[in-house]
């Protein structure tokens, strides 16, 4: 259109790019659904799509007890848990990289995995002294310890200007502190308990139940509006602290608030299933490479990508060793790296 005003073309360009990015998020959602289906039909006892479908529509109290049990009590909670944990870690990773202005940051950069691990190790080792069942005490203890770590970092950061550097410094200190405590608990515990602790640390969806799905979903849904309310502010923070604050943004409050949300999302993710690395690091990179840094698109896509990587890892884990599926925590990196390479190759530029 040679005669159209220039700004019209450019506005069209912006509208088109918005539509394109919305379509990319939708496509990713379809992709996630496919992976979820794949995860539901893989498992030691095998199951075809029609069988899965009938088990799903017949409900948990169907006549075919075996199929109902497998689908409703084993696979569905595990898959849903995987979706939720992946989404939590994807969002938490994106927020962490934004508030720390650091592409290497992940939900675990500030010691949240170490503190959760310590909490779980404490509960596994000393849990029998309390009149509370283990399946309840372990996630609770992990959750509380993560929030405690968050509170320590928060207090340190709140004393000063809460810059990214200060948060990282405080976080690394907390990381080593809880790691040492965790090592000490491991050192003091018996071989059987030690084995339990190590298995918890692996991060596996096998620990999922409807209770864990409900709690994690509850926390995720509670955090979501808080995350989405700051969409534009977080996008503005990508341009750096001084630029954001000169636009009238209260960078300190935004950073501390987001940090708190990341802590809740991360502890919701790790408390039940253990630490699952890599997802929270790589999902944001994939999301930003595809839709850019506009957080309206980057937040949902990072969540979807996180879920897809985690469920993909679960499928691969089940396929490699059908008997005892390999913990997803071990597979995520294996599944995630090809994905990252693919994205970099397709887009031909380094993600940030």
């Amino acid at each position: 259109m040679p005669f159209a005003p220039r700004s019209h073309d450019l506005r069209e360009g912006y509208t088109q790019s918005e539509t394109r990015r919305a379509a990319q998020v939708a496509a990713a959602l379809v992709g996630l659904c496919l992976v979820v289906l794949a995860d539901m039909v893989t498992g030691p006892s095998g199951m075809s799509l029609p069988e899965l479908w009938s088990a799903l529509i017949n409900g948990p109290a169907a006549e075919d007890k075996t199929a109902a049990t497998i689908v409703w009590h084993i696979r569905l909670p595990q898959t849903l848990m995987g979706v939720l944990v992946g989404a939590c870690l994807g969002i938490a990773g994106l927020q962490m990289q934004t508030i720390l202005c650091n592409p290497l940051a992940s939900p675990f950069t500030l010691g949240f995995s170490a503190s959760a691990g310590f909490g779980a190790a404490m509960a596994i080792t000393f849990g029998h002294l309390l009149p509370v069942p283990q399946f309840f005490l372990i996630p609770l203890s992990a959750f509380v310890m993560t929030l405690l770590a968050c509170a320590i970092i928060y207090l340190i950061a709140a004393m000063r200007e809460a810059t990214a550097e200060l948060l990282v410094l405080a976080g690394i200190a907390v990381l080593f502190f809880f790691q040492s405590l965790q090592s000490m608990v491991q050192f003091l515990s018996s071989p059987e308990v030690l084995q339990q602790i190590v298995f918890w640390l692996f991060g596996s969806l096998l620990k999922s139940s409807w209770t864990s799905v409900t709690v994690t979903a509850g926390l995720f849904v509670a955090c979501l509006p808080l995350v989405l309310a700051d969409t534009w502010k977080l996008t503005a923070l990508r341009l750096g602290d001084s630029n954001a604050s000169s636009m009238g943004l209260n960078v300190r409050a935004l950073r501390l608030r987001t940090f708190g949300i990341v802590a809740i999302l991360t502890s919701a993710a790790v408390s039940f299933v253990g630490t699952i690395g890599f997802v929270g690091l790589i999902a944001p990179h994939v999301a930003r490479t595809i839709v850019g840094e506009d957080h309206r698109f980057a937040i949902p896509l990072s969540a979807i990508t996180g879920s897809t990587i985690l469920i993909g890892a679960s499928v691969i884990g089940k396929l490699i060793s059908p008997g005892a599926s390999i913990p997803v925590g071990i597979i995520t990196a294996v599944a995630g790296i090809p994905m990252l390479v693919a994205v970099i190759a397709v887009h031909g530029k380094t993600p940030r």
Partner: protein
Amino acid sequence: MSAGGLAIERLSVQRGRKIVLESVSLALEPGTLTALVGPNGAGKSTLLSATAGLLKHEGSITLGGLALSFADMGYLPQSNTITSSLTVLETVLLGIQDQLGWRVPAAAVEAAMRTVGMFGLDDLAHRPIDTLSGGQQQMALLAQRLVKCPRILLLDEPTSALDLHHQLGLFEILRTYANEHQAIVVAAVHDLSLAAQQCDYVALLADGKLKGYGTPQDILTAGAIRSVYRVEVEILCNSKGQRAILPLSPVAGQAATARAI
């Protein structure tokens, strides 16, 4: 002073024990472009960020007799490296983020486009900002400040990364903006000739104190520059009355003592 002016009264800023700005009073009229000049460490940046309300300070700052709100303000700090891959248009849109929701209104995109066009950045509108040169980034960030049409525009060394052509272009934009919107524009600059030629007024700052405020002819005299910058200069004037400041040599000897006092 006329209605709508910016009045800075007895503005002081202290950092630790050091007084970086001491009782600066300044009245700026709408529709004017003021150059803020002074040697390194004179307090130019401090004055700008304190006026923007980003620093703890004493004294009062009012606009047309009323307390200043950030909505009236466009403040651009000294440039620093940008590592974001937001596009230029997205960057400028962030300047009016309070108007943006889940959907970006067409009017907002229109306003952002107009501002991008004002700076001649149309062709770069959809380019990631980190792929731009330093000068282009600086202009994109300035566009981000201008898009909301602030009544006060405070710029900290906006020309530091610009070539000659763009320096003049930038001042052209600033003058037009000040006139059309009856805005108050203050820019910290190091180039005294540029200040003398392009700005309506000059505020000279040294050691945290205001040494003078007035037209370039009145303020940028050889004597004032000699005492504040400790440099001998010659003031040149062409047939059109445009002035240039030609630095000759540093004033010998008294540099260290003058600083200590």
